[in-house]
Each structure stands twice: as structure tokens, then as C-alpha cells.
């Protein structure tokens, strides 16, 4: 940011001193080694050491931090558990990292009202654990649910395996208290569903920390289903597995989750957690049904039939919660497990129409087999492991490489970008649930026109005219809100037509 480019260390020292008076000595970090432990989130490719890290405990403290940053014109970035996979919490080198990991109280669980009110640092799985005694749970379940925070989930509009049936974070947040980019404490929504007026809550969820910092989140609790049945089906290849997915959905069955892993992903999971998936499988599907027992029972039979019709050579049915957990363990550990079979890898996140699955998978295979990808100088021999939420077409290709071999990292990134091009070509999206963050900002122009991006930028500027809230994320070319955007020489078309106003 132009406003901070020439900032001198003295200004930051003054800011740190002010923050210490508000938060106390222990909650403000400026020690170099400590700061460095915060230089990346779950996407460790990108590293920026922040100037200051703060660990607030209350909404008032967050507001005080934001006001101090505004006064000093210092950018700030919010961070939960630091497990994001798009670099959404990548710090600003001359900014403040606001870590919510100590704001971890579950303030209220209102099971009869089907709501929980939590602080942003509360771990996703802890919400379900707190609601479990009353027979309720929190539905969105990212693979990192054992550690990722509700605040981070909200910022990235995180998904998870069960989003096919239950929707993403945005469908499960009914209210939020936030500190706006000017330091004001604002409430959007509450316990009631769908408040009248503009859907500002909808805009805030998934805004990746660019519209403010959530300090209290009201989430939906769902009644735990009466019955849950889970099967693991092994197929000769992803083609047959993809066929089974389409057949299941076409039959009108809406599973809670349909997950697919290909041979390479299975190999990694086996190495990591010994999940003992069927030998020789080219692909496995995990299909989970939940709901009233008779319905689940009837549909479970149907799912098995569709798997067999599509050449499943082995179907295992989880006999109990322990077996179900083992099926899921392989799937949920898959990303990190790839570390066992490759020194380095990129986790990609893209969306395609479910029906395009077999075609896109063949194209990805072609990319890694060395054929030229669309719009890229297609390098060859890069292995790609595939893990995906097959039911809703959310791909997670894992591009494997060895950074110590010169050129491999660049090759891998090219393949990774080519996969996103494929997603766009087939009418999909460059991110399903990990967010744009720092990682995908550069791909935004492949999916959106300049006008689209300028319109989004206007919304952002309405919240954050100074551009201090998580700068450098989402948008490929960060600019000040007063700046005339892009290549436009005249008045912005939306402004000219009175639809929008340039701040």
C-alpha cells in the first residue's frame, strides 16, 4: 500500500507501545523469532513476517487494535488457527496480525433454539462437541475441523465433506458481531433467520477479512440425524466412480457426503493413517447417508446398487462409529498425508459441474502425463493426486513436486494453474471452499472481467475506504479506494448509470 510503503520502524514502535497499553505486555509480540512463527498459515508457500502480532481476548480489544491501526494507517490481517489453504491470513510485512486464538469461549449453546454463539477463535469441532450432549451438532466440517476456527471458517466461507447436503458456512451463520475497518463494533443479523434489508451478513461471510474482523458468531445447530450409514466403494478407476456419483444424484438421492480419492491419494492416506482401503482400487468413494432411519435404509440399498452397476469391485459398510471414523480418517488426513509420498505439494481447490467430472479428470491426467495443458506451457511428469467432494464437483487436486529439484516448483505451479483453467473452461470456479486469499488473486481475472472486479472493489471500499483490512488479498491489483480503477479512462459505467458511486 502506498500509504505504508515508506513507513519507518519508529512508527511501528509507537503503535506497538500503544497496543501494549491496551492489551498488556504478553498479548503484543514483536520478538523476531516469535513473529516468524506467524509468517504463514496452512499454505506455507507464502511467507511474510508481520511487524506486530496481537492476541486480543475481547471484542473491545479487537476494536482498540483496529482503531490504533487506523490512526497510524497501518494495515492489519486477522488470523484464527492459521490453517487456511489460500494464504488468506498471510500477514502484511509492515502491519499487525490480529490472532483470535485466545478468543475461544463458547458463549452460549441454545439447543432448543438451534443456535450457538461463539467467539471467533473457537475450534469448529468444539462447537459440535459442546452441542452433542443435547443431540445437536454444527454441520460444516472442513477436513481441518479438529483445529480450524469458526472465525476463519466465516472469513473463507469454508465448506467440507457434508456441504453437499447441508451447504457452506454461509448457510449456517445467522448473526455476527464484527469490528468494522474503522474500529466501530457492528452487529449483523442475530438468532433469527434471514433479517430484512440488504444481505450484509451474506456479503460479510466469505469476505476473507477485507470487510472487518468477526468477534462473535451466531451459528445454526442441527439435530443429529436419527441414522447415519456410511459405505466405502472401490472402483477400477475414477471414471467408474464418477459414473456412480452421477447415477446416485440422478436417482434423486441426496447423500450427506460423496467423497472420492484416486489411487495416488489412497496411497498417501494408507502411508499416513493405515486406513486399510481395498487393495488395487483406482478410486474409492465414501458415501454417507443420514436422516430418518427408514429413508436412509431404503436409499442406502439404492446407493449400493448404483455403485455395483458402475463396476465397484468391493463395497464395505461401516458397522459402527469406529469403522466410520476409519473411513473418514483416510479422507480427512489426505492433504497432509501427501507429505508422506512427496516432499512438497500444492493443494488446489476448484469447482466443476459434477457431470464434467470424468472429462476433467482425464484432462488433468493428460496434464500430468505430459500433454500440453490449455493455455500453459505444459510441463510433463508432474504427479497429481486427486481428492474431491465428488457430489458437488469440488476438486482438490494435489500437485506433487520436489522443491530441491530445479524447475519442479515452477512446473507444479503451471500445472496447478492449468487445472484452474480447466475448471473455468468447463463452467466452474477457481475456488470451492478455500477462498481466494493471496494464492488465487492472480487467477481472478481469468474468471472475472475488469468491470466485475471493479464492482467488487467498490463494495470493499464502502466498508474499508483506507484499504487497511487484509490488503493484497482477493484482488489481483490492490489499489486505493480513491484511485480511478483499471484501464477505464472515463467515468465508471456503473457510476455513470447511477448504480454505484466511486468513493
Amino acid at each position, binding site marked *: 500500500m502506498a500509504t505504508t510503503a515508506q513507513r519507518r520502524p519508529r512508527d511501528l514502535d509507537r503503535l506497538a507501545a500503544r497496543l501494549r497499553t491496551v492489551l498488556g505486555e504478553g498479548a503484543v509480540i514483536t*520478538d*523476531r*523469532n*516469535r513473529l*516468524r*512463527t*506467524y*509468517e*504463514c*498459515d*496452512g499454505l*506455507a*508457500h*507464502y*511467507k*511474510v*513476517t*508481520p*511487524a506486530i502480532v496481537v*492476541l486480543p481476548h475481547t471484542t473491545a480489544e479487537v476494536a482498540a487494535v483496529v482503531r490504533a491501526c487506523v490512526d497510524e494507517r497501518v494495515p492489519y490481517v486477522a488470523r484464527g*488457527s*492459521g*490453517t487456511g489453504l489460500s494464504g488468506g491470513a498471510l500477514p502484511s*510485512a*509492515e502491519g499487525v496480525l490480529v*490472532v483470535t*486464538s*485466545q478468543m*475461544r469461549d463458547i458463549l452460549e449453546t441454545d439447543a432448543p433454539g438451534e443456535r450457538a454463539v461463539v467467539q471467533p*477463535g473457537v*475450534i469448529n469441532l468444539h462447537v459440535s462437541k459442546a452441542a452433542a450432549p443435547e443431540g445437536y451438532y454444527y454441520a460444516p466440517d472442513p477436513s*481441518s475441523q*479438529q*483445529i*480450524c476456527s469458526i472465525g476463519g471458517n466465516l472469513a473463507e466461507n469454508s465448506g467440507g465433506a457434508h456441504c453437499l447436503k447441508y451447504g457452506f458456512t454461509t448457510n449456517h451463520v445467522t448473526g455476527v458481531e464484527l469490528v468494522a475497518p474503522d474500529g466501530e463494533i457492528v452487529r449483523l443479523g442475530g438468532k433469527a433467520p434471514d433479517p430484512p434489508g440488504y444481505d450484509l451478513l451474506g456479503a460479510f461471510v466469505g469476505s476473507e477479512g477485507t470487510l472487518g474482523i468477526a468477534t462473535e458468531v451466531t451459528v445454526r445447530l442441527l439435530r443429529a440425524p436419527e441414522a447415519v450409514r456410511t459405505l466405502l466403494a472401490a472402483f477400477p478407476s475414477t471414471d467408474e466412480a464418477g459414473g456412480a456419483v452421477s447415477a446416485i444424484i440422478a436417482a434423486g438421492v441426496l447423500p450427506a457426503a460423496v467423497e472420492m480419492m484416486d489411487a495416488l491419494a489412497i496411497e498417501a492416506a494408507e*502411508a*499416513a*493413517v493405515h486406513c486399510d482401503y481395498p487393495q488395487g482400487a483406482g478410486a474409492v468413494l465414501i458415501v454417507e447417508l443420514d436422516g430418518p432411519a427408514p429413508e436412509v435404509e431404503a436409499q442406502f440399498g439404492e446407493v449400493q446398487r448404483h455403485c455395483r452397476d458402475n463396476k465397484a469391485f468391493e463395497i464395505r459398510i461401516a458397522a459402527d462409529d469406529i469403522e466410520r471414523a476409519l473411513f473418514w480418517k483416510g479422507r480427512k*488426513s489426505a*492433504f*497432509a*498425508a501427501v*507429505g*508422506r509420498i512427496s*516432499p*512438497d*505439494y*500444492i493443494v488446489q481447490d476448484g469447482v466443476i459441474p459434477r457431470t464434467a467430472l470424468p472429462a476433467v479428470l482425464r484432462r488433468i491426467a493428460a496434464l500430468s502425463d505430459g500433454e500440453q495443458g490449455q493455455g500453459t506451457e505444459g510441463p510433463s511428469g508432474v504427479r497429481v493426486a486427486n481428492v474431491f467432494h465428488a457430489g458437488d464437483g469440488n476438486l482438490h487436486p494435489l500437485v506433487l513436486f520436489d*522443491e*530441491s529439484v530445479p524447475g519442479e*516448483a515452477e512446473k507444479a*505451479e503451471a500445472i496447478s494453474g492449468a487445472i484452474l483453467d480447466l475448471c473455468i473452461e468447463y463452467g466452474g470456479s477457481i475456488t470451492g471452499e478455500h477462498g481466494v486469499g*493471496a494464492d488465487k488473486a*492472480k487467477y481472478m481475472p481469468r474468471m472475472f472481467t475488469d468491470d466485475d472486479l471493479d464492482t467488487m472493489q467498490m463494495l470493499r471500499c464502502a466498508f474499508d475506504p483506507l484499504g487497511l483490512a487484509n490488503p*493484497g488479498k482477493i484482488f489481483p491489483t490492490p489499489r486505493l479506494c480513491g484511485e480511478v480503477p483499471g484501464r477505464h479512462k472515463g467515468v465508471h459505467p456503473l457510476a455513470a448509470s447511477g448504480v454505484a458511486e466511486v468513493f
Partner: protein
Amino acid sequence: MSTAHSSAHGDQPVMTGVVDGVATFDPSGAFDEHRPPDAALVGDCVHCGFCLPTCPTYVLWGEEMDSPRGRIYLMKGALEGEPMTDSMAGHFDACLGCMACVTACPSGVQYDKLIEATRGQVERNHRRPLRQRLLREAIFATFPHPRRLRLLRGPLRAYQASGLQRVVRRSGVLRRLPTVIATMESLAPPLGPSSSARPLPERVSARGTRRATVGLLTGCVQGAFFPGVNAATARVLAMEGCDVVIPRDQGCCGALSVHNGREAEAKKFARAVIETFESAGVERVVVNAAGCGSSMKEYGELFADEPEMAQRAAALAALVRDVSEVLVELGPVAQRHPLPVTVAYHDACHLAHAQGVRAQPRELLNAIPGLELREIAESEICCGSAGVYNLLAPHAAEPLGDRKAANVLATGADVLVTANPGCLMQVATAFRRRGAAGSAIAMAHTVEVLDASLRAVPAETFQKRSLLQK
């Protein structure tokens, strides 16, 4: 401030791998060239964060630098030339070494090896504040020396028996003493008459047909403060058909030293133990203290830079088993008599995380007729004992102990069972802090419960014998 990596795409930091490998080892930084943490192992961490919720210090403080992946980050910085600062050393010292992160890690990061190497570096290259130094010296002059510990029994027991302990505790004078002294005082378990500490015979013969000849490590704290556990171990092994060899002159196994970066001392202790059991003619070396078992199984690595000794160490390590492992390996022959109690089984970190022994103790307990086994919530999180950690860092150990005690009491069990003397003392102390609520539960080692069942001791008698009975 700068981005850690130079730019290849305009202003974007360039992608360089996962928690990318260490560029080059720089011995002018925090670490010297003697066994620095392996850079390749550091590079295995993908920074996913799955370790955080099981890390006791992250659970307590929610700070990255006091989490496993944060400490790995600090190691990486140190390897690359960052200096050893008080803050860096403090975050390494704050690690309990519970290894819950090793269990949780989907990428197979060997944090156990990393932290062990790092502790040695801290020990050599960092000067702790005077009080800490004195405390450490005092601890290591006492704990790894069974004879000195046994000498302490007398005064301690007299102190307890005289009623002075109650007076001192009620007076509040402990609150004015340095925390560490107060902690030491409070951790000592109620001690029985000195007859209970009489040394075991050098050989206990198998009942019925002999199925194996095993050696028994009597340990330091176990032997001095919990002699009943060693006696029970010998009895159970004999009743299950083992000749039990109990070498008289065995010393400390070196676990406390190795877990605190005192490599030379650890090797000295380990060498003696290896020599003792090498010549004992045993098929297995049975250990009933989790921390001892875990470090004895790693004797081979301890002597990695002495090839000949490493071989002997590895050969002995291959014989080492926790008592629960050996009993499950052998299979039951002795009759189990009913023991109608509810038991909460607490996984000692160095048994569950470091040795992967979870199923065997549960299997043994479940096989006792009438016994009901209950699981403890958050079982993967350390109780705060962690060797001598509760003496070195009571500010962290105490809240962890309280958390564990609350989870244990929530099971409603009659007896808390675990396989490590440190855990027993730590959780007992936490119970005591809770007053009446805490005194309702008895405590025992797994093998004591089994012993009661094999000898048909009624449950009430067994509970009267419990460690904490007031």
C-alpha cells in the same frame, strides 16, 4: 521486515515448497554442530496445524510459538542462523515432550527426534536464569539416583506421619515458599512404612510352568515412592508364568536426562543399565514406568555416534516391553477373580504417544470380571507431569493437572488407573487441590489392579490399599 523469499512474480512471494527445507545449516546461529535437529525432518512439516489441539501448551495459551509446528519453525530459524535467545529457549523448555503431536501428525513428522536434539542444543548453548539452573541441578542430583531417593523417604514419611504436613498445608506457608518447593512438597505421595520399600528378591520364580524369563526395571521414582507397584509387577509376572530377574544394582535408565537434553549423563546411566540387563540372561526387559520404557526403546538412537555401543544398545532396546505389552503377548493363564469397580484409564503420554501402547492396558483391565472401564475425555492431552516438567514449570503443569482431574472425576469412576508414577503424583496433587471432591477417587497402577484380581483381593481391600487413601 521482509518476505522470507525473493520475488519471482512481481510482488508475490514465490512459492518454495511446504515448510520448505532449511536452506543451509549455519552453525553460527543458536545450534552447534553436535547433533543439530535434522533439517530433513524439519522439512517434513507441512504446517497443517493438526497438532495444535493436542498440544498442552497450545491448549493452555493459544500461541503459535508454543505449539509443535511453531517450535519446528523456531528450530528451522535456529538452523538457518537465528541466535539462541531467551524467548527461543523458553519456548523449547515449555514443551512437555508428551508427543501427542506425533500421534496427531498426518505427515509423520518425527517431532520426538527433533525436540530431543533441540533440548541438547539448549542445554549446551543457553544459560538459564540462576534459579532455574540451581533447580535443575538439584533435581538431577536426586531423581535419577534410586538410593538418594530412598534416603529421602524417611524424612518425608516422618514429615507426613507427624501431622506436620497437614499443619503446613493448612497454614498457607506453602504459598509463601517458592512455587517449585511448594510443588515438590505437594507431589510426594503418601508413603507407607519403610517395610513396604524393602528391596525385592533378585529372582522371583514362575508359578506353575515357566513360560519366559524376564528382567524387571525397578526405576527411580517407582522404586522409592511406589514400591508396591514393583512388587505387584513381579507377582503378576510370576503368576503368569515368568521367572522374574530383578538385578539388585540397577540404576536410573536415563529417561529424565535424555528428555532434558543431558546427553552425556543419559549415556552414562543407559550404559550401566544395558550392561546390567545384557548379562542377566533374560528374554524381555519389563518396564512399568512409561517414561522409562519409551527411552529404553530408543537406546539405539542415543548411541548413534558410537557404532559398537549402538549395536548393543539396539539389541537391548529390542527386548524392552511395557508390562502390559508383555502380559498381552504372553496371554493370560492365571485365573482372574471378579473385581467389581469402575475404572477410568488414563493414557500416560510416554506409553500411548511415545510407545503406541493403548490397547494392551485396556485389554488387561477389560478381562477382569466385574470391572467396568470408562474413558476419560481429552485423553490425548498430557496431565502436566511430563517427567520433571511439573517441578520446572508449575505455572503450566498446574492448570493441566486441574484439567485432567476434572475430566477424570467426570467419569464417576472409583479408581483412576495409569501406568506411570509421574502421572499418579501429578493427578493426585490436582485432586488434593480440589479438596473433598478429589479425595473420593482411588488411584492405582494397571498392574496393581491386575494383581488384586489375580490374588482375589476383595475390591474394598484393594481400594483401602490405594495410593491416596487418607
